[in-house]
């Protein structure tokens, strides 16, 4: 790969997001290391095999990643979902679940609009 990571602390970054930064997530422990440790321990526990399988959790994470529109998370969980054995159909359906909830959240507020229209009307 010819592209290299911009130096840490550089003020000449081409954009706010850079995919190399995903691999630097752990550096967040530079400040408040105890909190970072708690977070990463918690994170690992959340994604461990449990009542839900690790594969199912990975698909949920992929859907949430699209809802919060986090490019790091989409990168990480696209890869993770494939590694957990999920396929494109399942991953796409997960993204549609995110889209449906997100779209539905807007649309269901239309009931509030109806309430206002009803209140304001004759």
């Amino acid at each position, binding site marked *: *790969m*010819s592209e290299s990571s911009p130096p840490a602390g550089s003020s000449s970054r081409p954009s706010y997001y850079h995919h190399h930064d995903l691999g630097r997530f752990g550096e967040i422990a530079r400040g408040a290391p105890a909190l970072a440790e708690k977070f990463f321990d918690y994170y690992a526990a959340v994604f461990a*095999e449990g009542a839900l*399988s*690790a*594969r199912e959790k990975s698909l949920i994470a992929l859907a949430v990643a699209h809802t919060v529109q986090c490019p790091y998370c989409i990168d990480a969980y696209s*890869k993770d979902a*494939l*590694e*957990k*054995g999920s*396929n*494109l159909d399942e991953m796409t359906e997960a993204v549609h679940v995110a889209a449906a909830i997100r779209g539905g959240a807007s649309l269901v507020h239309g009931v509030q609009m109806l309430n206002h229209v009803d209140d304001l009307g004759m």
Partner: protein
Amino acid sequence: MSRVLPTLAKARAPLASAVAQRRVLARVPLARGFDRALADAGLFPLSTRQIEVLQLNLGKRCNQTCGHCHVDAGPDRTEVMSRPVLEAALAFLERGGIPTVDITGGAPELHPDFRELVTRASGLGRHVMHRCNLTAILLPNYADIPALLAAHAVEVVASLPYFQARETDRQRGEGVFAESLEALRRLNRLGYGQGRGLVLNLVTNPVGTFLPGEQRALEARWKQQMQARYGIVFDRLFTITNMPISRFLDFLERQGRTEEYLGRLVAAFNPAAAAGVMCRTTLSVGWDGTLYDCDFNQMLELPVSAPAPRTIFDATREALEGRGIATGPHCYGCTAGAGSSCGGAIA
């Protein structure tokens, strides 16, 4: 099958050369060299133990040209194991008392002496394994192979990257998945994979530049899916990491992702997997009789290190056991995550 691509060799691609592959790998900057990783794990220098498996690569001929093939096998390859090499391998199998013979290729059943090899190795009381691409046994001149395998209780290790056509065909060629199902059904009808002594194991490798998942979890899902969708049963699922050599290296280079992929393998180095790598208990024999530590080293033309005997004609257990193993950056492919071997995950 409608898609059979030319091999790297046929296309005269630069990475058809083992030397060129080694050069590309050597140029990739790694956070830690493989020998350094071994040393940090207390495993340097890596050496062999008792030989438990004699792996015979019968040649590079294959009816498929899979996108990840570490052999660069295909219909246009002509390298096949000669009769004298085959005889020497059988003689070593017998006098060395090696318990298992693992037959690979290419598609090894395309070798004219495959049937005889299976029969004689089985006659010596050895456990025989056949690495099967599933489609070669459907070819008209090879339709007798499944019954032969069953008659000698040969363990079949069959490649199938995924339980759907889209993924499988993208890696192995249009129509391969449907043919693979037909072959698996034939094997099931002969009693394979039914838990009655005829062992049918599947091998999955990622269709892309990601690492394989946890073998046990994948196996449970695959068993459920293969049974529910296709009525097919099997014994074990083995996960294998794509090795960054030959055609997969060519793919990585074309994608500009060699460094990224190697980086992932290096970051996932697992000392437990390194301790159990299959090269420690395997002796690999090339089509021309040259000895290697594994099939991957064979394709990179990295023979066993001196002073071990270099060919099957000179092989003795005493001279080969305890030898130092030839390593390189590609070895990270077998030690990443849960590890990878011809028998699947290691750790």
